[in-house]
């Protein structure tokens, strides 16, 4: 009897969610996706929130070169866009006239939007050295700028950090697509001594 019950529960894990998953709507409501679980729920304390689910299989993100499947309750969102910036603080240290100071931050953007995303700088505040204008920050010259690497990067060479600068873009759904921003600064012998600091806002949205 126990063996039989175990087998039934095993089968139900696979079969029930498939049969009961569907969109429902009326004039007054719209349930865009539903799911049947065998457990889980919301748990919280002062320091954490846990939204747990058990009883689904398969779950997680499964991707290949031309597709991405987000399986399971945790991915049931009607369009999502996420960003991760690591680290969020850049330190170029003390500059010398014979070297280029560099620091890197990695931006990851994920979206299930079919139109992809765009990432740009939408606010720049603070003080800086002279912005690079010849495509390359060079040791011995007073120049400051950034370059970007990654499959979605739109930048070529070192560019000035200005409001509205488009950094990266994709035209398909993405999953943690990385763009590494390399901040660079160099000084000349005549650069005035001082402390410089900037704050940048990196804005991501899906494309139209």
């Amino acid at each position, binding site marked *: 009897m126990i*063996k039989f019950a*175990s*087998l039934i529960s*095993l089968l139900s894990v696979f079969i029930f969610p498939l049969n009961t998953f569907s969109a429902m709507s009326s004039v007054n409501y719209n349930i865009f996706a539903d799911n049947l679980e065998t457990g889980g729920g919301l748990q*919280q304390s002062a*320091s*954490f*929130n*846990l*939204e747990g689910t058990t009883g689904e*299989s*398969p*779950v*997680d*993100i499964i991707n290949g070169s031309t597709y991405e499947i987000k399986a*399971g309750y*945790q*991915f049931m*969102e*009607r*369009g*999502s*866009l*996420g*960003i*991760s*910036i*690591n680290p*969020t*603080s*850049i*330190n170029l240290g003390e500059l010398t006239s014979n070297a280029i100071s560099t620091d890197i*931050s990695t*931006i*990851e953007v*994920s*979206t299930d939007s079919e*139109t992809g995303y*765009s990432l*740009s700088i*939408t*606010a720049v*505040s603070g003080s800086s050295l002279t912005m690079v204008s010849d495509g390359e920050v060079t040791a011995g010259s007073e120049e400051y700028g950034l370059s970007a690497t990654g499959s979605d990067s739109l930048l070529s060479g070192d560019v000035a950090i200005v*409001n*509205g600068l*488009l950094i990266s*873009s994709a035209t398909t759904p993405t999953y*943690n697509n990385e763009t590494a921003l390399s901040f660079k600064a160099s000084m000349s012998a005549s650069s005035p001594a001082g402390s410089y*600091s*900037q*704050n*940048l*806002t*990196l*804005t*991501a*949205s*899906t*494309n*139209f």
Partner: protein
Amino acid sequence: MKTIKIYILGLCFSLLFFVVPAQAFSISPTKVLVTLTAGGSDVVKMNIKNESDQVENYQVSIVNVEQDDVGRPIFNGIQSPAMTWIKPEENISTLTAWENKEIKFLIETPEEAQAGSYYLGLAVKKIANTEDVLLPNELSGQLVSLLYLKVSGLANESLNIFLWQADKKFIQQREWSYILGLKNQGNIEVPLQGTLLIRNWRNKEIYQKELTLGPTLIATEERKMDVKIKTDQGFLWPGLYQAQINIMFGKSQQSVSGIFSFWYFPWWSLIFVGGVLFGAIGIYIFKIKNKKGKSI
């Protein structure tokens, strides 16, 4: 039977250990469409999820959205009157680790609001503290959900081709490049579908291509793009050609066309013409010299 028990146990453990990868924060939905009458109101809900292990503060705001030349959204900091029609229920929101929170935006259109589409962004920005005091050298992430706000009334779909020309008046290569400029003069966004036709001097169609003109062109915006084609099929005579573009746009499927002429002179034709001219001049000189010789 022992195998089945191990399998069931394995399955249970695997269900527990499948986890969602961490991110800093995310929003949902990414696009919102709201249709209202002038003087109407509605509430839009957005979910913010703190996908980090610590308490985070978020600033909620409304931003203006425009399009760049290839149709990507740009946020240029311009204050549009429609931004004042939307108010978030809270401007600063604090989320505990991995908390998912719903934010409401109240949209109220004024009685005098013009019919048409308005493009705005519901923005969520991670900030260092609730006073939004900037930390030095800080990189802040901001996510924007695109809001299509439509005020009901008379919809006008109108598209203007303000630029349609070759990048050169005389073309030598088989790769031809044109510049196309479009302006949406209507009050709603229009999807675009284009066809390029090339005709020779006898008005015979020698080339046709469907063009990808990018995403929907939003109201009042312009788009400029390069159209490149490679006419490497068959022989092409040097001479005068015409490039015509037909664009179907909008839900009303209207069309607009642009046409211009250009000269195609491949290098071999210039060498040929040069050779013929050189030959003709040579024959002419030879004849003159011959004539003078006879007269003496």
